[in-house]
């Protein structure tokens, strides 16, 4: 036990005395959350719109007012000239153009239908689709208002409810994702370097010549990073609650317990890499290429797994971040309890155990 405490104390000294790394460790999650929260969002807000109002009548103005009132659009300029549309798009100033033809109101009243042209910059297909949908629903709204007094004979109306995230906020999606990413980065990379560093600086030689137990060394290496990661977790959650207005709907305690499990999984991955490699660079590369990339690709946080070809879907099962992402989303957003996520928890625990066993088995008690 004394030996174990001495080992932990030593590891803490290594971590805490490396100020630069420490700064990165604590700074990274904050910066990432802020970047993802404010810069890299795929929500469409205040998209610039060009309105060509050739009609300039009551109907067109009412629709324009509705567009302007929505927080999705910002009417950039109004024009009467259809030919300006293309040049404005080419300058890249607007994402969308709405063109009202002449006699818009007149047609609507007398022919019972009027046409409204919506032109979108589809070089970004997602944004284009989202924006045209917004315009559609605003126009639909307007028509329903018009017909309020009259009873339509047959009509199906869709009642849409966005569960768990009614405002369609991006933060709901990325906070669990960034949590997975940051914990993965901190835990895997730092521990991956830790043992291999001792091999490289030869301190392993003297440690090996002492009566130590490999399991103690391995566990002691992970303790400081476990604590560090828990602090990071707290800062991520505080940021997401107070800065991004994303409350934790489920049990905070459960979230912490599951995160701790995920952190331990990542730590064992790091240890495994560290045991298997012989230089810090290789360990770093493997943890970056072998862990960070798959985490981004296969966790479901950036790209939906359901849309991937079957082989990739199967591969994604081996990525611990995928399971943690599911768990974190279930607790944070859906507010679900343990009964909903026990399967994912079990899988994470299983991966951890297997990795720990393999690492212990491959820990070399001699120099090679």
């Amino acid at each position: 036990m004394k030996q174990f405490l001495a080992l932990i104390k030593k590891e803490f000294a290594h971590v805490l005395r490396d100020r630069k790394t420490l700064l990165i460790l604590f700074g990274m999650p904050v910066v990432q959350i802020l970047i993802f929260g404010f810069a890299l969002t795929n929500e469409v807000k205040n998209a610039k719109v060009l309105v060509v109002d050739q009609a300039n009548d009551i109907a067109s103005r009412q629709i324009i007012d509705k567009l302007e009132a929505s927080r999705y659009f910002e009417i950039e300029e109004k024009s009467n000239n259809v030919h300006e549309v293309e040049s404005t798009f080419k300058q890249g100033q607007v994402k969308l153009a709405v063109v009202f033809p002449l006699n818009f109101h007149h047609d609507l009243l007398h022919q019972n239908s009027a046409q409204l042209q919506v032109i979108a910059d589809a070089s970004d297909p997602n944004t284009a689709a989202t924006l045209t949908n917004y315009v559609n629903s605003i126009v639909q709204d307007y028509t329903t208002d018009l017909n309020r007094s009259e009873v339509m004979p047959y009509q199906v109306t869709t009642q849409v409810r966005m569960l768990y995230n009614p405002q369609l906020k991006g933060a709901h999606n990325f906070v669990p994702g960034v949590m997975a990413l940051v914990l993965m980065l901190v835990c895997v990379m730092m521990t991956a370097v830790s043992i291999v560093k001792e091999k490289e600086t030869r301190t392993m030689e003297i440690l090996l010549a002492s009566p130590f137990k490999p399991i103690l060394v391995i566990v002691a290496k992970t303790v400081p990073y476990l604590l560090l990661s828990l602090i990071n977790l707290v800062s991520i959650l505080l940021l997401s609650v107070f800065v991004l207005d994303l409350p934790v709907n489920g049990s905070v305690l459960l979230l912490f317990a599951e995160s701790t499990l995920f952190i331990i999984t990542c730590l064992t991955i790091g240890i495994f890499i560290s045991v298997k490699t012989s230089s810090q660079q290789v360990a770093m590369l493997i943890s970056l290429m072998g862990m960070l990339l798959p985490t981004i690709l296969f966790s479901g946080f950036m790209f939906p797994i359901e849309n991937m070809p079957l082989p990739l879907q199967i591969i994604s099962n081996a990525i611990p971040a995928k399971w943690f992402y599911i768990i974190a989303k279930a607790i944070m957003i859906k507010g679900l309890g343990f009964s909903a996520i026990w399967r994912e928890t079990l899988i994470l625990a299983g991966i951890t155990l297997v990795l720990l066993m393999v690492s212990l088995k491959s820990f070399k008690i001699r120099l090679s």
Partner: protein
Amino acid sequence: MKAVTLNGLSKVYGKGKAIAVNKVSFEVSNGELFGLIGPDGAGKTSIFRMLTTLLLPDGGSASVIGLDVVKDHKKIRSRVGYMPGRFSLYPDLTVEENLTFFATIFNTRLAENYHLIKDIYIQLEPFKKRMAGKLSGGMKQKLALCCALIHKPAVLFLDEPTTGVDPVSRREFWEMLKQLKQQAITIVVSTPYMDEANLCDRIGLIQSGDLLTVDTPANIISAYPEQLYAVKADNMPALLKTLSAYDEVLSNNAFGEYAHVSFKDQAIEVNVVQSYLQQQGLSGIELRRTPATIEDCFIKRLSN
């Protein structure tokens, strides 16, 4: 029971291509200061690593305090002290922290064996709050020695402890080893410096993995067959050239500011040689008998 026994110990690196240690056998008695002398790449470190159970031998066997280096590696590790050739302590821990850490790892306390390291540690004490990585070379060696001694090992393995250390610190270091010998600790030390060989009780000369000889330094020196002469002249390169062309010369090696020369005829007159060298146009000639050194013996054995 001998402190250390090697029996045909061999180590081969890389699919049998590089033989680092070739069937080496020797014994070290309890309380002995044993030196393994040889140039870089002779196999000293490989032998040390096998004896400290860090490497598995590829042939032969070895035991330390009666324990087999393969089977009983755990027991050996808690009973021997090892100081690797390169500084291997934690540079980001202080002097004191390093010592306390290794004391704890070896299940002991600093106070328990303080008497063993006292003389060395006193010199380190003013710097005990300093990071080990920021110590001078000599201080690092002292700290490493303290860490290797902290658990009162039965056998102390020091792999090239004085390499890269200044001459004053080197002498101090050997003084410390002599004091440790008083504490009945068996010490096995390796060094590429031939002058340090005389400070050992017995030495083994090793070259390219082969053990050339094991004996006391005095015996090795007295076994040198020829009379040696130290020769000096104003123009040393010319002197060496002249000597190797001289048919009376048996061996001729540069040795600091002198050349060590032996002659085929053991009864050769000094004046004869001197006048020959003068005839060859050399000036400032100095020629006198000199006892052989370990290095002479080493070179002699290598040339055979």
